[in-house]
């Protein structure tokens, strides 16, 4: 996409990283506008952490460029970049107290008047009075704040956050999400946040890039990604989707006609990524409703019939698994609005949805969804691959 570059944007141009034969990041093009809260979202091993490390200067790219505004920082040493990182599980210096941890960057740059800045920063992350504590004496949440303060006190042009909330429990994570948003408005600057937690990415970021197998699958606002995913991967990684395999066999006005499981469906062409051939028809589970008879299906809705096989109660909603006559399994979320009765397992039902809630994706039969989700390289595996590659390289020399 060709967009006008705001000044100071972080641009990755054809960025690649290979460890031996393994390509971890594959010709990545990405623009992070200055001042945005940007999330790189993807499963473990999709290359997001490696991308972050290349921006920080901790991993050397195999190819491509990293630009910050007009400056090419691809080959700059980490300590020459106006970029700071909040590391996964923080990497606080165990031999230094909280104050010295936060002061570390300022001292290295020879900034005058360190104490005032450190204290201001510590009070910003609500750690006044903890100056002389050692990292090990702090709770996980406090350590996380120190790590944030240690990076932010340097006023980086880009703050990199590597799964910063991954080590915290759920309640604390919620609180720190709020904290991060607050800090972001108070401090400003560009935040690039790497996470595998889609909820975290969606609540924090104004722009999300979904990465898979070293490439960006889709980039947009959280709502754009959720409402109209570009690929099957995005549709299943960001929230859940029912995907029906079919073929496009015609057009009727603004709608594409799809045949799947012997039935005909339509999808607005504005919500279609393809207009011919093998496709996946997607509907989010909460957009599907269940009724007992064909007469109850509202006009204009399309449906599949089947049997409820499983009922999961989540309080706020109920999840039904419906096995359709065609043999495909559907997920249906019914909001607990108190209007509709629970449907017991074994009941025959019709699952229906409005065509404007459906979306149409390209179907690559060789591309297995589960493979992408579960079979990807782990971050650890990437590190091991790096070591192996280095050994291979050393052996070749």
């Amino acid at each position, binding site marked *: 996409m060709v967009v006008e570059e705001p000044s100071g944007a972080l641009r990755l141009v054809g960025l690649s990283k290979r460890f031996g034969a393994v390509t971890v990041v594959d010709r990545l093009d990405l623009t992070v506008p200055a001042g945005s809260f940007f999330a790189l979202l993807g499963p473990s091993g999709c290359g997001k952490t490696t991308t972050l490390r290349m921006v920080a*200067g901790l991993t050397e790219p195999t190819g491509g460029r990293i630009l910050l505004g007009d400056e090419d920082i691809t080959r700059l040493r980490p300590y020459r970049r106006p970029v700071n990182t909040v590391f996964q599980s923080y990497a606080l210096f165990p031999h230094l107290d909280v104050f010295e941890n936060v002061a570390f960057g300022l001292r290295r740059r020879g900034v005058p008047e360190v104490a005032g800045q450190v204290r201001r920063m510590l009070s910003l992350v609500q750690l006044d009075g903890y100056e002389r504590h050692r990292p090990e004496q702090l709770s996980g949440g406090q350590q996380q704040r120190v790590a944030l303060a240690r990076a932010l006190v340097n006023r980086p042009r880009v703050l990199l956050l590597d799964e910063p909330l991954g080590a915290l429990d759920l309640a604390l994570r919620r609180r720190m999400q709020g904290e991060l948003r607050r800090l972001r408005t108070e401090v400003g600057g560009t935040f690039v946040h790497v996470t595998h937690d889609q909820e975290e990415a969606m609540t924090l970021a104004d722009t999300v890039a979904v990465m898979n197998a070293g490439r960006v699958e889709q980039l947009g606002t959280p709502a754009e990604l959720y409402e109209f995913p570009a690929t099957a991967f995005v549709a299943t990684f960001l929230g859940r989707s029912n995907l029906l395999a079919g073929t496009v066999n015609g057009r009727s006005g603004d709608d594409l006609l799809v045949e799947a499981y012997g039935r005909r469906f339509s999808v607005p062409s504005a919500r279609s990524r393809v207009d011919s051939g093998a496709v996946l028809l997607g509907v989010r589970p909460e957009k599907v409703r269940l009724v007992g008879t064909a007469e109850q299906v509202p006009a204009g809705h399309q449906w599949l019939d089947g049997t409820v096989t499983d009922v999961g109660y989540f309080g706020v909603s109920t999840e039904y698994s419906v096995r359709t006559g065609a043999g495909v399994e559907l997920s249906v979320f019914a909001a607990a609005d108190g209007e509709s009765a629970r449907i017991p397992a074994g009941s025959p039902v019709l699952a229906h949805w409005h065509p404007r809630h459906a979306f149409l994706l390209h179907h690559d039969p060789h591309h297995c969804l589960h493979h992408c989700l579960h079979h990807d390289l782990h971050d650890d595996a990437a590190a091991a691959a790096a070591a192996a590659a280095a050994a291979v390289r050393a052996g070749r020399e």
Partner: protein
Amino acid sequence: MGGRFGRFAAVRFGRFAADTFARFVAIGFGRFAADRLGRFVAERFGRFVADRFGRFVADHWVLAVAALVLGYLLLPVAVVAGLSFNQPSSRLSYDFAEFTLDNWRDPCAGPGMCAAVLRSVQVGFVATAVSTVLGTLMAFALVRHRFRGRAAVNVLVLAPVATPEVVLGTSLLALLVAAGIPQGFWTVVIAHVMFCVSFVVVTVRARLSGMDGRLEEAAMDLYASEWQAFRRVTLPLVLPGIAAAALLAFSLSFDDFVVTNFNSGTTVTFPMYVWGASQRGIPPQVNVVGTAMFAVALLMLAASRLGRRSTRSSRSTRSRRSTRGRR
């Protein structure tokens, strides 16, 4: 003589009596307890007490065994400490005779012993300094760098540890003789550095590889150059390991007899002195040195413990969490 014998006989009889009595009581009581008392107790308190007793034995026998083994380990040290206050009845006697403080008052009374201790300290300092520097550099190379021939270097570093001292000593002697190099102070130093280096590498490497590598990355991310990251983060965190390695090297050097024996020429270190004296008769002051070394070791270990308590520690949060979970 007669008095001594009498005392020993009395002591021995006392031991014998005590032991026999204890056995009798143990066996007798055991049987009684098992038969009568056990039934009585079982009836009165149900299985509660018996079960608890069984569990107590099952849970604690290993503690008793460990205590005995610890006693075995400490017994000779205790004997050395005791002998340091002993006035032996003859030069070749190793038995307790008379209590005295003379050995501590004048530890240098034995001819040549203090000179030997001094020589050992000199050798120890030089060998420790050299081997600590060489070993630390090697440990850094092995942990922080991937390079060609790394496996071979690893083998070479570990090989002296896996070689008996006789072989180390005789090899070096064979080389020195073949090369026509006279043996003396410096050949002893060379030999000691050779076997100390391996231990230094192993010790420093353990500390270094236990260190979270991301700490250095974090430092560089926070505007520290390579040198500053080393100076401000790596070195302070590895220093306890280097100190431990130096302490180990010194104790190995100070205590080495076998390798030194083959390469010392006319240089007499403390172990060489003890070896020579063991044929002629050991001056009791030797035990003073042994006891003093033990005391110094205890002090240093205590100091390192206190030091660690105040600046603990380089362990990553991850390992800390796992130890906390263990408790």
